[in-house]
């Protein structure tokens, strides 16, 4: 009996030592929320990796103040409103300082409600639906652009460069894709482009033959492809070429991913995309790319850059505030004005960082900058 008690005492003493050992090193927990499984996992993992790399470089450069190390907690939103809310609650209970995510607007919007009640600051690297920031949430920021601007750039490109008279629009009925398609339809009408049809497909469809036959018959100048993800874009563009549709194809930021070219190589050639301009000559860009290739390998998707910036900005705010108090983080965020990988980081009172959409085109194995609607110049 005596022995057991001694053993128990020694063990508990060890446990206390271990616990206090970890408590001495102050850890900053940060969260990511993105679809890590399921069809949108390519972008979801980009977001996760972007944040992980941001945390690593931030530490290496000795920028972290008030904490000894950063721990990244990644939760899976699966691009599903219900799962995203559950994941947000999980992050909340883990006590993360802020959340970098989510990907689908339909997942970001409900999970942001949960996090703002926490409150835990949230910054989305990828959700472009206007409602993400326009609901008056106090702790919501956005690193990427807004669909209202994206659609404007898209229509300007159709009218001025492609000289389109007619457009056929497809969306796959998600919060993101449907709203963006509606903005494009509106802007196109205003610009004098006739919208031949605005049709829908279902998320997760494989067969697009019926809709493609319609497009072929309508014979539009431009086909606007508004889909939730490259996973849907790949089979769609392959079938579109097979069906012999001759229209120019314009798509948007969610379909923009190296996977799209890799998996639909020949069919992808000449497809135009609206995506935020990223200056690939800056020091920050090169640092990130090097770290990404070393850690993950391959070419990062567009949202890895935005996620890096989102996490980096938040980490800077936390470091400057010296605490994880949401109020102090918010004060620092609103004062923020610094260069990032994707843009100059500065927020308006809604928490938006501004849009800088340009047109890119698929050429060979990569996306090439093509046209800048804000200046009207080709690259």
């Amino acid at each position, binding site marked *: 009996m005596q022995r057991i008690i001694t053993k128990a005492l020694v063990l508990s003493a060890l446990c206390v030592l271990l616990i206090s050992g970890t408590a001495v090193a102050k850890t900053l927990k940060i969260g990511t929320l993105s679809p890590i499984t399921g069809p949108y996992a*390519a972008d979801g993992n980009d977001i996760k990796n972007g944040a992980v790399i941001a945390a690593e470089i931030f530490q290496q450069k000795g920028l972290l103040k008030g904490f000894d190390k950063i721990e990244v907690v990644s939760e899976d939103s699966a691009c599903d409103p219900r799962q995203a809310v559950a994941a947000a609650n999980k992050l909340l209970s883990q006590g993360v300082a802020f959340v970098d995510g989510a990907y689908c607007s339909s997942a970001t919007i409900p999970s942001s409600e949960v996090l703002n009640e926490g409150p835990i600051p949230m910054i989305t690297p990828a959700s472009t639906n206007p409602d993400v920031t326009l609901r008056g949430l106090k702790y919501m920021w956005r690193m990427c652009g807004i669909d209202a601007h994206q659609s404007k750039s898209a229509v300007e490109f159709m009218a001025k460069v492609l000289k389109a008279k007619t457009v056929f629009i497809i969306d796959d009925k998600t919060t993101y894709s449907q709203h963006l398609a509606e903005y494009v339809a509106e802007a196109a009408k205003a610009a004098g482009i006739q919208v031949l049809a605005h*049709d829908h497909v279902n998320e997760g469809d494989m*067969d697009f033959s*019926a*809709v493609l*036959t319609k497009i072929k018959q309508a014979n539009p100048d431009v086909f606007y492809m508004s889909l939730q993800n490259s996973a849907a874009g*790949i089979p769609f563009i392959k079938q579109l070429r*097979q069906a012999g549709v001759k229209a120019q194809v314009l798509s948007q930021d969610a379909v923009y991913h190296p996977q799209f070219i890799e998996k639909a190589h020949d069919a992808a050639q000449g497809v135009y995309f609206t995506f935020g301009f990223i200056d690939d000559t800056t020091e920050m860009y090169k640092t990130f790319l090097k770290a990404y290739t070393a850690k993950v390998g391959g070419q990062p998707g567009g949202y890895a850059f935005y996620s890096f910036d989102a996490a980096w900005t938040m980490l800077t705010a936390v470091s400057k505030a010296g605490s994880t108090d949401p109020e102090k983080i918010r004060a620092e965020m609103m004062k923020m004005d610094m260069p990032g990988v994707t843009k100059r980081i500065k927020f308006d009172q809604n928490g938006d960082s501004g849009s800088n959409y340009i047109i890119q085109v698929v050429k060979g194995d990569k996306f090439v900058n093509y046209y800048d609607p804000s200046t009207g110049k080709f690259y």
Partner: protein
Amino acid sequence: MDFFLQQCINGLTLGGFYALIALGYTMVFGVIQLINFAHGEFFAAGGYMGVILLSFCASMGFLETHPLLCLGGSMLLAMGYCAMLAMAVEKIAYMPLRRASRLSMLLSALGMSIFLQNGLMLTQGVYSKSYPTVFTNKVLHLGNVSISYMQIMTLALTAGLLVGLNALVFRTRIGTAMRATAQDKVMSALVGINANRVISMTFAIGAGLAAAAGIMVGMYYGTVRYDMGFVPGIKAFAAAVLGGIGNITGAMLGGLIIGLVEIFAAAYISGEYKDVFAFIILIAMLYFRPTGIMGENVDDTRV
């Protein structure tokens, strides 16, 4: 008119895929009265086997020199693989429960479906996989209607498989044994039919057809994804019920009808309603004729 004909061809191609998958549901139901919810996963597994084998062919350079040989070989191997997979699933998940209540078997099937789908995700990754181009995208123009060679080939293969299955079930000894087991398990056992073997064969044949559909879907649509079995599985199940579950001809008809309805709903109403209409047809049929289209002569032809 051209538009209509073109959509007919689209619908028949899609319907053919559904028919091939639906057969597996209907045959298994005929023999052991189980709705095998894991059946859609055999279809996905077939699609993946196809992409693995064809990519291997492509990397060896055989695909360009002997496209038909590669395709035929891959298809046979994938069908064989899925047949064995289905037999294993039957042995592991269904055979021990054969005397249990039907609900237990159904739950076991659902569990198996989740297990197989996640297994596919873990081993093959979450990203979609691209099929190598087996045939160039040559298109045959008949007036304004265009049929791609791919479509002709899938239609021909589907028709061939359906005819082959009919011959197998109605002309061969094993087919006779299957029909006998379906009609009366005890009686057929008394006349010396090995029920276990027949049930195994039924699973194998159904999964083989689903695997063939998987490869064709992969080639036709260009990509496969780990969760590709779910939605077509549900639709094919609907097709099997529509045609009268347990009835082979019914499943073929049901598949074609669901495919055509889906395409026409997308073509003439809107793409977003195509699934709605596919299931409205099913509900209407169940309301007015609960046994399905061919449900009446269920005892003569079911397997």
